[in-house]
């Protein structure tokens, strides 16, 4: 339908924790236990090679995954170049590079839809 009046109804932005698929975050918590050490400082994102050029944001991906918004996380993940700078920056010793590899692995092999 043509938007005649110049107004529209914005999409609902609700996150349903109960129905969202939490399998990926559970998997990551198991195989990369250090991911639980994250304090959300954003150092990884500040130093990121991909994040320098686009709105790629590791901290945000982790948040999306924890909420079970896997589709959004998946779209973002493909931007990573795996250079590993984030890992060197992290003050908590989170294996960020491994975390991303495992997410990609999970999406490719186990995630449905």
């Amino acid at each position, binding site marked *: 339908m043509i938007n005649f009046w110049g107004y529209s109804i914005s999409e609902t932005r609700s996150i349903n924790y109960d129905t969202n698929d939490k399998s990926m975050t559970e998997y990551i918590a198991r195989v990369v236990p250090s991911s639980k050490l994250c304090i959300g400082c954003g150092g990884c994102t500040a130093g990121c090679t991909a994040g320098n050029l686009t709105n790629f944001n590791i901290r945000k991906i982790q948040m999306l995954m924890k909420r079970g918004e896997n589709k959004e996380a998946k779209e973002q993940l493909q931007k990573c*170049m795996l250079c*590993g700078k984030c890992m060197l920056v992290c003050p908590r010793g989170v294996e960020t*590079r491994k975390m991303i590899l495992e997410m990609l692995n999970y999406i490719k092999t186990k995630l449905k839809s």
Partner: protein
Amino acid sequence: MQQYEYTNKIYYDHFVLPFTIGLVVLLGYLCVKYYKWIKSFPKEERKKIRKGLFSFKTIRSGWEIFRESLLHHNIFKTNPMLGYMHMTFAFGWFLLIVVGKIESMVYHTSAFNPPYFAIFFRYFHPAKETFPHSEFFAFLMDLILTFLLIGILLAVTKRFCSRIFGMKKTTKQRAYDLLILTVLWLIFPVRFLAESFTSGLNGGGSFLTHNAGNFFSGFLPLESLSYPAWWLYSSLLGLFFLLLPFSRYMHIPTEMVYIFLKNWGVKQGKEYNGFSEIQVNSCSRCGICINTCQLNTSCNINDTQPVYFFRRLRNHEEYAQQAEDCLMCGRCENSCPVGINLNAIRQSKRPDILRVTKDTYAYVPQPEVKPAKVAYFAGCMSHLTPGIIKSMLQIFEKTKADYTFIDEKAGVCCGRPLALSGNWKAAQVVMDKNLQMIDASQADILVTSCPICYKTFKEDYLLNIKVMHHTEYIDMLIREGKLKVNALDLKTVFHNPCELGRGCGVVEAPESVLKQVSQKIPTVYDGKKSLCCGGSLANTVIDATQKTKISSDTVKAYAAYQPDIIVTACPLCKKTLGKTSLEIPVKDIAELVAEA
């Protein structure tokens, strides 16, 4: 007339059957297997075989086979005792076969006697009948047998006390391997017994078998023991041949095939193919890689070294974790006596998990690069160590170089980290972006500060301009007299990054630069023997604590030389070592040069 009789005598007894059947089955199996493997090579690689077959390379391979497969020259370099043990087995057995064959030919005066005739010569040859130099041959054969028996004694000792042989750990074997090991160990003592018993009955032999025969005849019923001993000897040989293709001793024939292929120029590509199979089967499981691996020495991880990884591949066991659990530092590859491409094979077994579309990395902007003679690519990691970049820019300014800093603002990764995790397709996309940038710079020389980038620029980008690591560039500047440096009053040790020294063979340039700007202390870790800092991107299995352990062990090893500074040439090494080296500062060679 007598000559005529010799050649017509039929030398046969049923006991030769196990040996003969074993040998025929083995040769048949090997032919089929090698044919299959070589057939699976890519076309270009097969072409190299056809080209190399009738060239000087084949003769060179023959010499290498003599030096490595028989004398084990490379193992001698690792440890003389270990080398001696391997040599007695390989060269001893070889001599036993060759001298035995010559002996049988001199006796028989014909080259065409059945293969088993020389092996069981003492059984068929009537001892009282002499032939030219028979005494000398008997002496020689006994000497070689003594040589072999000493080798077995050493091998048994090694199994229980590997430290004498410079090995902290020896390979852990499985039941099947232990079975064939026992068979191999028994072959020569049984040959010794069979020859001694026959000598005790009929005479013949020399200092070893003759005397032993006389000794045994004193208390053993040799009439009833001699014939069964020959049966046992033949059966052991036959059994060894039948078990060989499925055991580690497959390396004996395969290593020779590998040496030929290697010299003809066949290369291990990105894919796992027949050539990889040949290399995996060339592994003798000597276990030298276990001792050089820092995952073993620092973290006590003992299931991932090439020897175990390859065994998993051969036995079709689960290997996913082992494929990833490796720093790719190349210390094993550097010490491997067979010279197998250990890293490339492991890398080929890492799965490609990224889905690449035409939009992958589309966000990377078109490069805006100012053209210049020298293009400087710092690399992602160098952007985390601004000191290195600052020093390099200072050096460029000082020497008035016409340079352009191509990844100053909008640089992307070189692609090697993607490739290291098996994602070659995605790496190719990133590489194309960088290629555009390098082309746009119109430079003659590409200088990089990161050995990881350096390796992939050199090997995968197929650039037609000169690629230099900054240590090489600085070395060139000093040699050409463009850069004057003063020696600082500092004692330094050099940590050669894995990707630079072992990975690309850059050893002399950094050492020469460091000697000119400081007092470099020589260490046992110089050149290609350097340690890994532990920060490697290649390993995704070990955790941060284990990486720190490797790193602090490396720092400890260097600290033993009491340097004022630990110098390296890699931003990743600098960052990793800097975290654990709390007392001794860690600097990049470029920073030192900028100060000098």
